[in-house]
């Protein structure tokens, strides 16, 4: 709504501009801190999902019930702890971060599922397949966390 019929005085305008610039700088600082925290969170999540895939491929815990339960429990506890740490530490989100992270997490999870299916179908446990695959699987999350650095 615009009811300002009188032209504001010079000082008021400059004060407003200063306030806008201050807010802009503050917003940018908050956003950068949020991006840095988000990047650490994405790296931790990517590392855990990649590590779990390699555990599944090389230790093959499915053959041993207790090893399977232990490995899965450790993975879930790690993910939950990381999510809780992030939720407690987060003070802001940078523009587009929730959407960017959600897409990256969905792609990584999809690749994880495809990896399990591939393992089941081929039974192949060669390092030249799984180490690069785990890296590629982690890439979407790593990329989501690193986008801010290029801005």
């Amino acid at each position: 709504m615009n009811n300002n019929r009188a032209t504001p005085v010079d000082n008021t305008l400059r004060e407003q501009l200063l306030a806008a610039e201050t807010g802009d700088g503050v917003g940018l600082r908050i956003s950068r801190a949020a991006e840095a925290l988000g990047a650490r969170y994405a790296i931790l999540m990517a590392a855990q999902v990649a590590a779990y895939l390699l555990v599944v491929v090389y230790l093959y815990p499915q053959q041993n019930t207790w090893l399977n339960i232990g490995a899965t429990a450790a993975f879930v506890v790690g993910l939950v702890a990381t999510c809780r740490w992030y939720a407690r530490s987060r003070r802001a989100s940078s523009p587009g971060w929730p959407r960017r992270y959600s897409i990256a997490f969905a792609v990584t999870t999809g690749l994880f599922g495809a990896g399990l299916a591939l393992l089941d179908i081929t039974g192949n446990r060669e390092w030249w397949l799984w180490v690069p695959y785990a890296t590629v699987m982690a890439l979407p999350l790593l990329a989501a966390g690193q986008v801010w650095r290029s801005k």
Partner: protein
Amino acid sequence: MSIEKAPVHPRLDLDEYLSLPVRLSIVAALAKVEEAEFSTVRDTIEVTDPVLSKQVGVLENAGYVAAKKGYVGKRPRTWLSLTDTGREALSRHLTALHALIKDL
């Protein structure tokens, strides 16, 4: 006969809700983030709880800011974000502000 519309003076584009510097700072800060926690905005804008609370209330009623309450564990948290209306108002206000200052 058509009457030509006179160009609008930039002062008419100034937004009454954003004419207060503290409100302008809040909105400008929120324009750079998706959302930010109340206490973070308070600390970085350097205002007190009641001041921020009051100004956020005004901006919320104007439809410029959205406040969402939630919990992290047992701790309550309020998340502030700029609405599309608020973003447009800020852009219009800043354009008018720059035009007025240029004319001085």
